[in-house]
């Protein structure tokens, strides 16, 4: 098992976001975290990413420590004052040419423009380039499809299935349904 969460609990002062949470995730699988707004989805993802410590319980990794992973939060993690290509070079950890990644995400020709002038959907696509610019086996994504148009969502789902087929794994939250065949997906409901 790549990742197992045992008896996880997280609180903000007295408000318990989640309690006694158990789940597992194996390589090649996607864990879809669902729940209404404020049910602690983002907090759970931050706990998995190590940005935040759980109040109780623990996250166990197959290789005792957290593998390399890509994090995508609500915020895009891109600088409005760097050109799209400069942003890509900043987030890059593998050696893929940024220009081809830009084209792959449907942003061809915008390389030297500033994200400040991009639409929300284009900014999200630029942020999603982070997934292609890293060989990390694990993706932790917080509502990656936010602000994406239909074509963008299809593009993103293609990325997902490609990553899963290569044995990668994903933990993500989403309000849209995921257009993948069911066998890869595990679901985890919060705030029931």
């Amino acid at each position: 098992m790549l990742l197992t969460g045992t008896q996880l609990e997280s609180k903000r002062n007295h408000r318990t976001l989640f309690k006694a949470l158990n789940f597992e995730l194996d390589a090649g699988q996607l864990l879809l975290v669902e729940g209404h707004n404020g049910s602690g989805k983002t907090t759970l993802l931050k706990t998995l990413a190590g940005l935040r410590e759980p109040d109780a319980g623990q996250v166990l990794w197959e290789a005792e420590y957290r593998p390399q992973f890509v994090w995508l939060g609500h915020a895009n993690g891109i600088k409005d004052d760097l050109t799209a290509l400069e942003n890509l070079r900043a987030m890059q950890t593998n050696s893929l040419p940024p220009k081809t990644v830009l084209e792959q995400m449907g942003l061809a020709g915008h390389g030297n423009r500033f994200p400040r002038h991009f639409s929300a959907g284009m900014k999200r696509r630029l942020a999603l380039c982070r997934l292609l610019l890293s060989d990390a086996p694990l993706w932790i994504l917080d509502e990656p499809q936010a602000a994406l148009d239909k074509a963008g969502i299809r593009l993103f789902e293609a990325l997902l299935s490609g990553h899963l087929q290569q044995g990668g794994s994903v933990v993500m939250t989403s309000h849209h349904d995921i257009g993948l065949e069911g066998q890869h997906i595990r679901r985890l409901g919060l705030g029931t």
Partner: protein
Amino acid sequence: MRLTHAFVSLLYRDFTVAFRHRNEILNPLLFFSLVTLLFPLGVGPSPQLLQTIAPGILWVAALLAALLAADNLFRTDYEDGTLEQLVLSPLPLPLLVIAKILAHWLVSAVPLLLLAPLLAVAFGLEALAIGVAELTLLLGTPVLAFVGAIGSALTVSLKRNGMLLALLVLPLYMPVLIFGSNAVDTAAAGLPVSGQLYLLAAMLVLSLTLAPLAIAAALKMSVSQ
């Protein structure tokens, strides 16, 4: 190798972002000169008086400019999500923090160093005192940047934190102010200033080694909000 590459590229990136906001680089400078301008209006134009209080004024103005600049050191990165990515980077956060603060210092404090002599002349300081003032500012402003960054990292996740940042950081600025302005005073009186300069240098080394650890811990705390 990956570390120096990341260090340099982060430094370069922050530099380009700052340069794309050229007008914002002027803010600390305008603030610095305006504050120094206030004192003659307040205490009167008599040259002897201005000459004696000039070191203090220059240093208090530099202190306040550093405090003002410290506030938006991490704020934009926090809002656009790049701070999260920086904290999650596999490279040691304290070192990346040093790169960020070095870029911040180059952009906000170095122009100040160029402007200070002009204002010092306006206050009637002679060449030697101005030279020493430059030296103390050169040694002191990085300390102000690092200590300001600790306060900024602790309060970046808070909505309105202007006064709190000043309350946290100004007491820690006081030793730099004491030795900085006094060194210029003593130089103006023609006495040796090596003692003060060594102490400023010691504070610089201390903040260069310890502050990044506190800043990294504070950023991890702020990002987890």
